[in-house]
C-alpha cells in the first residue's frame, strides 16, 4: 500500500516536471530577438491609385542589404537598399532610376533632424531655399511615379550616421554588401499594405447668426470664411502642413474668436451671418468643399454675399494675393478688393489681385474659391502664393514644418481679414476706424495663434488616415463650437477615383550581418579543431595504435572470412 502511494506520488511529480519542461521549451522557442545595431523610425512613401493607375511605393516590407551612393558602378542593386542622405541627393540620378525602371531593392532617404517635428525643436534651418527646392522636386518626382519597391524616409541621428559611414567605407573598398560578403542588412517586418476602406472626409461648419431686426422677414446676408485643414505629402506620417494649410486653420479660428466676441453682445452684433467652414479633401481638387456646398439649402447658397478662402498665409513677406475667378471688373470683386486694399495700406502691406479663369471641362481645381464660383457664389482666395499650385504640390510637403511658418505673418493676415470683414459688416468702409486695434480687448492674440500653430505642426492630417472620430477633428469641432452658435459636422466619402493604402510608418532594424562564407569557414575551422582535439586526446591517453585502429578494421576478422 505504501509503495503504491509512493509510486503514485512519484508519477505526479514526474508529470508536473514534464509540464514544466514543456512550458520551458515553449518559452524558449518563443524568445524573439531585437538586438539590432540600430532601430529607427521610418515613414513610408504614400501609396495610392488614381483612376485605377497605381502611384507611389507599392511595397512596405523590406529585407535587403544596404548600400550607399558610392556603390561600384555596374553592381547589381536589385536586392540592395540605397541609403541617400538629403545633402548628397542628386535628383537626376534618382529620376533616372525611377523613370527608367531600373531594378532596386529599396530607397531610404535621410532627412536632416531639424525637419523632424518630434526632435527637431526650434533649431534654424540652414540654406532654407535650397532645401525647400530640392525637397519639392523630390516629392513631386516620387508622388507622381509608380515605384515597385519600398521607399522610406527617416531622420538622421547618430546611430544611422555611424552605420552610413561604415557602409560608405565598405563600398569604397569595392565590396557591396551581399549574402556572401557580409555588411549591413535593413529589415522592416511589416505586412502587405492594405487598402483603406472607404476613406471619409469630414467637413466642420460653424454658424454665427447676425442680428435680425424686428419685422424683417428677409434672410440676412451671409459671409463665409473657409479653410481646408487636411494635407497630402510624400510621407503621410510626416505631412503636417504648417503653412498649407495650418496657417489658414489658425487664422480662421482666430477670426472666429474675434467675431464671437463682437457677436456675443447684441449691441455689437452685425447684420450679417457668418459661416465658418473647415473643409477636408483640399488636395483632391477641393472635393470636400464641393460636397459641402452641394449639401447647402438653395436659400442659404443664394444668401451668401461672398466667401473668403484662406490658403497658405504663413510664409509671406510683404505681399498677399487675392485670387479670383470672376473678372476683376465685376462690381463685387472690386468692392472686396478695395476693402482689403484700404486695410492693407493701413497695416503697411501689399495686396495684389490675380485672376484665373475657370475651365469647366478641366477637373483640376487649383483654388478653393473655384468650387464656390462653379456654383455661382462670389468668392476669393487669400494666399501668400502667387501662382496656382499643381496637383499634390504644396499641400503639406516635407519642408512645410514649424520652422517654415512665420507667426507674425499669420498675425498680420488675421488682422487684415478681420478688419476688412468687420468694416464691410458694420459699414465703416473708407473710415479710418480700427475695430480690432492692438492693445484693445479685441486685439488678435499672438499666443493663441502660436499655440494652435504648434499643435498643428505636430499633427499629420492626411484625410484617408483620419478616422470619423479622429481626436484632432473632434478638437477642431470643439474649438469652433466655443466661438460660434452652432456647429455641424458632415461626413462624406472621398471621391471614388482615389484609393489609398495604409502602412505609413514602421520601425527599421539595421543588423550587422556576417556573410555565409564566414559561417562555412567557421564550421570548417571548428570541425578541424574538434578532430584535432579528438586525435590528440586519443594519442595522449590511449596511444597512437588506438587511433590507427579506429580507422582500420581489425585484421582478425578479415583472416576469418578469408
Amino acid at each position, binding site marked *: 500500500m505504501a509503495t503504491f502511494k509512493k509510486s503514485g506520488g512519484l508519477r505526479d511529480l514526474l508529470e508536473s516536471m514534464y509540464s514544466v519542461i514543456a512550458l520551458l521549451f515553449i518559452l524558449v522557442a518563443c524568445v524573439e530577438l531585437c538586438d539590432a545595431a540600430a532601430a529607427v523610425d521610418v515613414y513610408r512613401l504614400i501609396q495610392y491609385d488614381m483612376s485605377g493607375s497605381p502611384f507611389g511605393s507599392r511595397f512596405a516590407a523590406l529585407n535587403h542589404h544596404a548600400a550607399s551612393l558610392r556603390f561600384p558602378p555596374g553592381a547589381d542593386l536589385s536586392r540592395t537598399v540605397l541609403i541617400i542622405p538629403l545633402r548628397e541627393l542628386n535628383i537626376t540620378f534618382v529620376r533616372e532610376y525611377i523613370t527608367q525602371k531600373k531594378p532596386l531593392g529599396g530607397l531610404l532617404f535621410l532627412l536632416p533632424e531639424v525637419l523632424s517635428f518630434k526632435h527637431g525643436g526650434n533649431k534654424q534651418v540652414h540654406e532654407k531655399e535650397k532645401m525647400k527646392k530640392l525637397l519639392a522636386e523630390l516629392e513631386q518626382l516620387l508622388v507622381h511615379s509608380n515605384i515597385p519597391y519600398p521607399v522610406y524616409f527617416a531622420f538622421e541621428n547618430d546611430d544611422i550616421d555611424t552605420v552610413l559611414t561604415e557602409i560608405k567605407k565598405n563600398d569604397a573598398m569595392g565590396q557591396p554588401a551581399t549574402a556572401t560578403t557580409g555588411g549591413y542588412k535593413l529589415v522592416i517586418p511589416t505586412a502587405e499594405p492594405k487598402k483603406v476602406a472607404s476613406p471619409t472626409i469630414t467637413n466642420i461648419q460653424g454658424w454665427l447668426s447676425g442680428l435680425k431686426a424686428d419685422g424683417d422677414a428677409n434672410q440676412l446676408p451671409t459671409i463665409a470664411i473657409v479653410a481646408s485643414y487636411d494635407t497630402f505629402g510624400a510621407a503621410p506620417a510626416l505631412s503636417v502642413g504648417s503653412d498649407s494649410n495650418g496657417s489658414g486653420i489658425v487664422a480662421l479660428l482666430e477670426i472666429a474668436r474675434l467675431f464671437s466676441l463682437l457677436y456675443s453682445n447684441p449691441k455689437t452684433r452685425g447684420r450679417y451671418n457668418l459661416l465658418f467652414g473647415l473643409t477636408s479633401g483640399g488636395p483632391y481638387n477641393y472635393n470636400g468643399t464641393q460636397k459641402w456646398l452641394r449639401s447647402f439649402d438653395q436659400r442659404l447658397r443664394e444668401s451668401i454675399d461672398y466667401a473668403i478662402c484662406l490658403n497658405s498665409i504663413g510664409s509671406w513677406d510683404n505681399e498677399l494675393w487675392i485670387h479670383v475667378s470672376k473678372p476683376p471688373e465685376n462690381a463685387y470683386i472690386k468692392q472686396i478688393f478695395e476693402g482689403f486694399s484700404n486695410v492693407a495700406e493701413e497695416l503697411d502691406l501689399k495686396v495684389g489681385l490675380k485672376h484665373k479663369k475657370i475651365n469647366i471641362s478641366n477637373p483640376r481645381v487649383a483654388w478653393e474659391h473655384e468650387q464656390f464660383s462653379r456654383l455661382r457664389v462670389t468668392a476669393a482666395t487669400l494666399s501668400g502664393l502667387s501662382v496656382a499650385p499643381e496637383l499634390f504640390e504644396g499641400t503639406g510637403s516635407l519642408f512645410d514644418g514649424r520652422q517654415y511658418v512665420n507667426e507674425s505673418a499669420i498675425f498680420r493676415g488675421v488682422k487684415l481679414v478681420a478688419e476688412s470683414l468687420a468694416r464691410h459688416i458694420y459699414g465703416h468702409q473708407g473710415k479710418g476706424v480700427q475695430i480690432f486695434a492692438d492693445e484693445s480687448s479685441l486685439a488678435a492674440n499672438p499666443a493663441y495663434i502660436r499655440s494652435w500653430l504648434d499643435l498643428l505642426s505636430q499633427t499629420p492630417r492626411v484625410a484617408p488616415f483620419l478616422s470619423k472620430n479622429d481626436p484632432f477633428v473632434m478638437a477642431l469641432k470643439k474649438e469652433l463650437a466655443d466661438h460660434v452658435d452652432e456647429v455641424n459636422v458632415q461626413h462624406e466619402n472621398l471621391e471614388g477615383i482615389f484609393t489609398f493604402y495604409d502602412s505609413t510608418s514602421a520601425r527599421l532594424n539595421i543588423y550587422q550581418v556576417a556573410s555565409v562564407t564566414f559561417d562555412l569557414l567557421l*564550421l570548417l575551422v571548428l570541425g578541424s579543431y574538434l578532430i584535432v582535439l579528438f586525435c590528440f586526446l586519443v594519442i595522449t591517453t590511449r596511444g597512437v595504435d588506438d587511433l590507427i585502429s579506429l580507422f582500420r578494421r581489425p585484421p582478425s576478422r578479415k583472416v576469418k572470412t578469408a
Partner: protein
Amino acid sequence: MTMFHFFNCAILTFGPHAVYYSATPLSEYDTLGTSVKAALVYLGTALVKLVCLATFLQVSENDGFDPYQELLKALIGFIDVAGLYFALTQLTHRNISQNHKFQAVGLGWAFADSVLHRLAPLWVGARGLEFTWDYILQGLEANANLVLSISLAALGSLIWLRKNKPKTLIPIIYACAGIVATMPSITSYLRRGLGWHFPKVVGFELFTSLVMAFISWQLFSACQRPST
C-alpha cells in the same frame, strides 16, 4: 545564418566535452554516471552560491573593481571547492581508477558550468541576425574552463584522495589549487579593474588554463611514481 551561427557556437562550446568523453578511456569504462552526478553537485553548489551572493553582496552602480566585494565573491567562490571535494570524495563511485575519477568529475563539472552559464545567452543571442564575436569568444572561454576544471579536479584528487605524496610537492600542489580556484576573481579583476577587453581576457584564460593543465599533469605524474 542565424541558426547556422548558433550551431557553430554550440559545437564550439559543448563539442570539446563530448570529444573528451569519447576520445579518452572514460567512454570505455562507462563513467557517464560519475559525470552526471558531478554535474548535479555543480548545480547544487551554484544554487548555494547564488543564495550567498544574494544575501551578502551589494549591487554596485558603476562597473568598477571594489576590492571588498571581490574578496567576498572569492570567499563565496570557495564553495565551489567544497562542492568539488564533495563530488570527489563523498559520491559513491563504481570501482574506477583515481585517474579516471578526477577526469570524469572535472568533465561533468565543466559541462554543467557551460550549460548553466552559456546555453541561455547562446540560445537567445546567437540566433539573431546581428553578428557579434561574443559567442565565439564565449565558446573559447568554455574550452578554457574545461581545461581548468579538469586541472582543479586533478589537484583536488591529489589533495584529498592520495595519501602518500612527496613532502616537497605538497605546498606546490596547494598553491596551484589556490590559483585555479581563484581564477574567476582574477578574470573579474582583469576585466573590471584593469579594463581589459573580452578577447584579451579570453586569451589570458586560454593561456593560463594550458599552463595550469601542464603543471597539474606534471604534479600528477610525479605523485604517481611512488605508488607504481
